[in-house]
């Protein structure tokens, strides 16, 4: 598998026009004051999201999972391809509210030994990372996440001498296939939106 990794930086208000950044520009970026992130991943599809070489026996579009205690036995996801895009996630430093909600449960912050994992088991005003999708929020807009996934067949494959199971297609059948898409056209990705804010904090 070959990966093409491209890093592009764009200014928030000029997203329509991609412009190269100089090393000097990049040196100004610390990430400390927040960042905006768009992530796109294509797997076994071309830029139009059409699968490439993902049909027929022993085609290379496959993912294998081998679990502990099941050496040499691979759970194979065959005819496997897809695309995922997270659009304009914004990460920001933030602070949790200063007042409890009516759902407060201090026991959630207890460790195994009964001690508090945050001071006083009290998360009020703690620092947190705030995650939002600030754009595309009109009724009917679903552009925060796009997802196309196809798993045509699922079966186990076993190692055979020097040939690992993930390079075999002895079990050619499957009871079910799985697919995530959109009904508007073939291979259109499913679309979704996230409203609101996620506060992520650790202890």
């Amino acid at each position: 598998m070959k990966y093409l990794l491209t890093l592009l930086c764009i200014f928030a208000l000029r997203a329509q026009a991609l412009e190269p950044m100089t090393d000097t520009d990049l040196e100004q970026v610390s990430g400390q004051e927040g960042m905006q992130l768009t992530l796109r991943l294509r797997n076994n599809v071309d830029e139009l999201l059409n699968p490439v070489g993902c049909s027929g026996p022993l085609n290379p579009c496959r993912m294998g999972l081998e679990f502990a205690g099941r050496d040499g036995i691979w759970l194979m996801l065959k005819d496997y391809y897809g695309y995922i895009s997270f659009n304009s996630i914004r990460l920001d430093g933030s602070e949790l509210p200063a007042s409890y909600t009516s759902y407060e449960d201090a026991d959630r912050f207890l460790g195994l030994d009964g001690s508090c994992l945050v001071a006083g088991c009290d998360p009020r005003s703690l620092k947190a990372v705030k995650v939002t999708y600030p754009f595309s929020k009109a009724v009917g807009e679903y552009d925060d996440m796009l997802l196309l996934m196809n798993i045509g067949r699922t079966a186990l494959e076993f190692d055979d001498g020097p040939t690992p199971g993930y390079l075999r297609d002895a079990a050619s059948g499957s009871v079910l296939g799985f697919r995530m898409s959109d009904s508007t056209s073939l291979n259109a990705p499913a679309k979704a939106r996230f409203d609101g804010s996620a506060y992520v904090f650790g202890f």
Partner: protein
Amino acid sequence: MRITTGGRTVAALLWALCLSPLLQANQGLTPLADDEMSAVSGAGLAVALEDFRFMMAPTSYAEQVGIAPTGACSGSGGVASNTNCWRRGDLRWYGVSISGAENLANSGMHWDDATSCNPGSSAMSCPRGGVIGGAGGWFSPFDNPYLMRAWSPEGLAYDGSAINADSSNPDKTIYEFLAPTEQPDYLFAFWGEIEAGATRNPASQALTAGTGVANGGGLLKSQTLIRGNAAGSVFRLFKFAETGASPVYGETFAMYYHSRLQGDFRFSVAQAAAGGTDTIGEAPVFEGVEGLHFRNVDAFLPFGQLYYQALVLDAVGTTGNFSLSLTKIPETPAVYNPFYSLDAGDVRGFQTALTAVRDWNAGCGGDQTCETWRTTHGYVRYGDWYPGNAAYSASSGTRNAINDTTDGIIFRACQGCENFNAFARRPLVIDKRGETFSRQRTQTYDCNTGNVGGCVVDGSGPIFNASGGDLTRTYPTSAVNLGDARMEGLLIHQLDIVSCQGGGGC
């Protein structure tokens, strides 16, 4: 676990990353100092969600694609090629959403994204609401958040030996995801298609090609709404703790899920007069009240127990089939005794179950056996009837009215549609001479014959307690309440879900 992926040169990864001053948008940014971050030990991660809502587009779906069975139907209508045969079945779930359940008129939306509705209406007539908890509300409160953490709780191995008995020197670590212990109610909703007889290859043909309808099969659109929450649910990942020379499952990747759900449920198929559609892939507007309703549901289902019972993957034969198994309880007293958690002196479980049902809403008072019983035994309760309340008496109480739509298990017709005829013939006491003899007690609807109504509905409940007489009477109604129901003490010894046809039959 090892993961390998195949593919030629097709996979591509494109990151568009903006680490920018964000120009006009940076007025709300709060820098995190290094010393603030250094206070985090990594013991866990908390996620709080404010003003939250998740919605997939109403046309976006997850699909399970079937395969044509041996001897599949090929004809349509009453012909031999459409008799005693099966067709390929495909399932699609569209527009999965998690949204607010606030009782605010016109704050929600039907699947067409154009027709407004009230997500808190008692009829559950609205599939999608606003943000959860209303503006400024929390899906998972910051002081009762979703938690992800790694730790080493005590438990029992498959052979009954203690695990992590010494907390300062643990021998196993788990990773767990915890739902809040309390959170607001929300709407979990999707609409779906069940398609029989499709012939399309979903990888190369659009949904409009090779439809089941065109091949003598059919298409049914439905809607599923759940209004409530899953507070208290737990999902854990760990290594299954079975060692030895010939293990049944071995030390493998293991999962357990303790599911807690409380709220209301509606499944419906009738579409509204305006906004209905039978076109594949198009989102219809569903009618407001029709369907099967479960109101005031409270359910706890434990799939696994820490270290000694878990969901694991296993091979079935050597031709490619596999199973997802909830491992069986070993024949080891050190394991099955706490699993059963019988009261002292009880050897069959009956007395323990009686006690547990009687005390279902009381604390265990420090009784560890009682506490363990409540983590190994599940329950499903439909409706708000409970042991000990006045309605439990046969002579008095406030059992659900014959057509109550607010509690218990209910079938409802669409508004403006014709009544349907409800029928019941439930033996309470059996006279071995036959159901028309004097000792028999059969519950039926106490209505006039011929589906003309005239039902007698008194305070004793929706069902007339008859001894003999006409057992064929029906109740013409637009809503019928089947009453409340409870299943207590659910115990799962072993469960195997097998995927066949990977490489021949199982």
